[in-house]
């Protein structure tokens, strides 16, 4: 039978005690994310890729772009799918096998943040209406874990998409056929940035690390777009937020998000 370990309890106590003095275990301000390192084109044979470290959490995202059938009733739009997987080498507690609810939620939240921002202009990814469209698959794999994978995966996927080149296909004899030299950037309309905040006691902290993640009462992930609008949100954890906290988290996500967005732009420029 499981039981909250004494060490976990002590860590939470220490984290809370520091927060009451306005401090965090790793010295950050409450609204300060960890150091973000973005390496694009880490997987050169993919159509786009990025390797991202957020503190000691590390994610590799590869983008594959290939022709696909459109979804029913969506014949005038390309396909975008974003996944996330925790590799067993990322942490001793990760098990192989089909993903559990935590990983499924992670993948779906990262996917929705990008999807709802309309980052990729899917209407430009049609080969032949109702018959063949371009599919953009952004697969995240977590190689090292230290909390807050929501943001680490979102940044990896966004950076990988920004770095992606899509081949060009035309229909020949009803089959999508590659057009040599037709490569272009993926059509991007905005840069979504997810900011995840944890609630410990009555404190809201940005980008919780692994120890903070284990001590949180609740969390909220808010994605904002280049216009500073909010385009996706997910509350998690077995605690609740007050109305004021929810509004405050919205404000933090806009402010922190705009700084991260600059880093993503720089990474793209640097990689070109």
């Amino acid at each position: 039978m499981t039981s909250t370990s004494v060490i976990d309890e002590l860590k939470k106590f220490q984290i809370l005690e520091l927060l009451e003095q306005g401090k965090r275990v790793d010295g950050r301000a409450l609204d300060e994310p960890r150091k973000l390192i973005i390496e694009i084109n880490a997987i050169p044979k993919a159509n786009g890729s990025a390797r991202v470290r957020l503190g000691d959490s590390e994610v590799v995202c590869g983008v594959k772009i290939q022709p696909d059938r459109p979804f029913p009733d969506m014949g005038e739009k390309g396909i975008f799918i974003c996944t996330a997987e925790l590799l067993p080498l990322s942490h001793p507690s990760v098990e192989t096998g089909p993903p559990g609810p935590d990983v499924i939620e992670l993948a779906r939240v990262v996917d929705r943040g990008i999807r709802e921002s309309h980052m990729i202009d899917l209407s430009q990814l049609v080969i032949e209406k109702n018959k063949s469209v371009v599919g953009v698959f952004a697969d995240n794999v977590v190689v090292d874990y230290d909390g807050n994978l929501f943001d680490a995966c979102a940044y990896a996927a966004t950076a990988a998409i920004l770095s992606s080149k899509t081949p060009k296909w035309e229909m020949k004899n009803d089959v999508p056929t590659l057009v040599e030299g037709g490569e272009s950037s993926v059509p991007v309309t905005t840069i979504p940035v997810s900011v995840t905040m944890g609630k410990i006691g009555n404190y809201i902290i940005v980008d919780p690390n692994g120890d903070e993640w284990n001590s949180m009462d609740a969390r909220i992930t808010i994605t904002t777009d280049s216009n500073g609008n909010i385009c996706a949100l997910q509350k998690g954890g077995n605690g609740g937020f007050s109305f004021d906290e929810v509004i405050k988290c919205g404000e933090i996500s806009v402010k922190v998000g705009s700084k991260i967005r600059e880093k993503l732009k720089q990474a793209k420029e640097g990689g070109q």
Partner: protein
Amino acid sequence: MGGRDTALVLLDENGIRCDGRKVDEPRRIMIKAGGLKNADGSAYIEFGDNKILVGVFGPRDVHPKHMSNTDTGILRVRYHMEPFSVTERKNPAPSRREIEISKVIKEALEPAVMLDKFPRTAVDVFIEVLQADGGTRCAALSAASVALADAGIPMRDMVAACAAGKAADTIILDVNNEEDQAGQADMPIGYMPSLEKITLLQLDGVLTPAEYKKCVETGIHGCKIVYELQKKALTEKYFGNGEK
């Protein structure tokens, strides 16, 4: 949000929505506490065209034992759609969407349930969507709270749930299926009115910071309407003319 083009008028010049409602008016809601013979507690909700049945078992033993917790009880939630509940017949295997919603509803209920009162045991909440119409997770969460109360599980408060959203550039209460497909934003909210805590919150779709605030306020308003109906359902069963 789908954001599909459509000829549908979501909001007319008099501020009336495609289904005849005003902007801050929820759909027809009917909640019934009890109804199932074998479950320890149950509830049935009709929320617009949603029809959802919830059964609760527990507190009961956990198998396998290593899944239990010596310090607290655990809550397990399964949100499940019947094959006939949606337009295209649904594959019976649990979808990733169902798994995520199960988790989100579980985490929305946990702040309300006094799990520490029954360590080593589990409370199981089984949600069955018989007919779906947009906003199933809010309807399901509202019914689940009633079913937990009906099962006699000690609770700090009930979680009431309702979505707010944006359509035709206006913040509206309780987004229906057409508004969800053609609209601009959908924000399901779960709220404990007595404790003033938001325990479920999601958003798909684009809102300015001001709209975001308005949307949360509107959703909480809807939750309070649902809360009254939840209490009425329990009152009817336990103090009314008996179960119908």
